[in-house]
């Protein structure tokens, strides 16, 4: 396996492309230059930091440090889920639901892959565990946030329909079922779309990365397939847990619809 190593100096020329974007924004008065600058600086700092953190973690191979890093990843994922919601839950569940579901889904499939197929030594080796978990989190997060967004928005919009069913003696499960189905469908959609387009329209980043690093394309494809299966499973688990959990939180034991548990103040 051979690959072409880059020095920081090699990045100066490509970075000029971003400067070009900035100039475009100024010339065309798009007013994006400030945002662009912030995003670029963030990206550089975040990635360089992660590079050093991973270097440290790979050298340490410590279960505690790996777990801590995984925990921080989950925290950022749940923050991102909340940021993507138009309507948010009140109280501890605002972050709690997303965090629990991403952890459950991404954690389960990551462990599954580590313990059954990849079997690194030790099983928690951060070189395998963290990139895997990161990819799972990124994708389950998308399913979870979409599913929750559709759930809360549909409940507010379809309130009369849900309450009509409840008022006529329907259980909360019966009353919420059409909306739960819609929310689950939306949550599953992105992963199905990307499975359909993969290889034809898009070459996934991990696979291209492996190919650039000198791995045989067919071997890289096998890795990518493993990842895609894991993502599909994780998204299914996570979206299901989040939508069912959300539906439960937004009703109560007397089978009432509790839209008061959606944060009314902050929307947008």
């Amino acid at each position, binding site marked *: 396996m051979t690959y072409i190593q880059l020095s920081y100096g090699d990045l100066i020329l490509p970075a000029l492309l971003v400067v070009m974007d900035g100039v475009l924004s100024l010339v065309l008065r798009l007013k994006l230059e400030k945002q662009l600058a912030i995003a670029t600086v963030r990206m550089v700092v975040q990635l360089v930091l992660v590079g050093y953190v991973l270097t440290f973690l790979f050298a340490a191979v410590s279960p505690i440090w790996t777990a801590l890093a995984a925990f921080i990843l989950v925290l950022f994922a749940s923050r991102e889920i909340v940021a993507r919601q138009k309507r948010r839950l009140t109280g501890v569940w605002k972050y709690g639901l997303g965090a629990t579901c991403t952890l459950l889904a991404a954690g389960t499939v990551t462990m599954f892959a580590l313990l059954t197929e990849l079997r690194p030594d030790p099983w928690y080796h951060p070189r395998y565990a963290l990139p895997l978990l990161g990819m799972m989190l990124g994708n389950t997060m998308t399913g979870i946030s979409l599913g929750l967004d559709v759930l809360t928005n549909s409940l507010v919009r*379809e*309130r*009369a*329909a*849900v*309450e*009509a*069913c*409840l*008022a*006529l*003696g*329907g*259980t909360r499960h019966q*009353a919420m079922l*059409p909306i739960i189905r819609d929310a689950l469908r939306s949550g599953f959609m992105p992963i199905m779309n990307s499975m359909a387009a993969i290889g034809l329209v898009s070459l996934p980043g991990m696979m291209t990365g492996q190919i650039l690093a000198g791995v045989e394309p067919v071997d890289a494809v096998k890795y990518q397939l493993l990842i895609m299966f894991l993502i599909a499973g994780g998204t299914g688990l996570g979206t299901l847990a989040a939508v069912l959990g959300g539906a439960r939180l937004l009703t*109560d*034991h*007397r*089978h*009432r*619809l*509790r839209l008061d548990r959606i944060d009314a103040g902050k929307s947008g």
Partner: protein
Amino acid sequence: MLTVSRLKRLHISVSFDLQDGECVALQGPSGVGKTLLLRSIADLDPNEGAVKLDGTPRESMPAPTWRKRVTYLAAEPGWWSDIVQEHFTAWDDALPLVMRLGLPDDCGPWPVQRLSTGERQRLGLVRGLMLRSRVLLLDEPTSALDSASAAAVEALIAERVADGTSVIWSTHDDAQARRVGSRIFAMSPDGCIKESRQ
């Protein structure tokens, strides 16, 4: 008999009894809390107080069972499916009532979108009446109806009352309140009800 004692929800605080086969008209300005009161009796919102049907507290049964006996019908009924007849467990059994309220007998497979506001209101009523509840909580059941349809609804409910169903009928129409109610509850902005017997 429906017994409501010290029912509290937001500013509302009421107690009253409702006999079997009795219809009470609920009146009061818009926004005074008539809908809130009816919803609370059906346990659709969190509320405090004791509500009993024949001495059995509502907490002793699952909420869906309670609502099949004490049924709230909203002024603007909600529809959870696109097709009219999918809202009925037995559409054929509902047909006589549908026709009696002047709705077309072929409206079963129609999309709900095709119905006018008044047609939806009457269909919502039929849908609720199919449960044969002990207590009906009617929230302005004729607000979108012309006088002929309203009269048909009043006659239909009167039959149910004669059969022993208890009804609370919220209305803005004073004449209707006097026609349908044996008692009138006037709700005031402080959340209390004042009773007047006819």
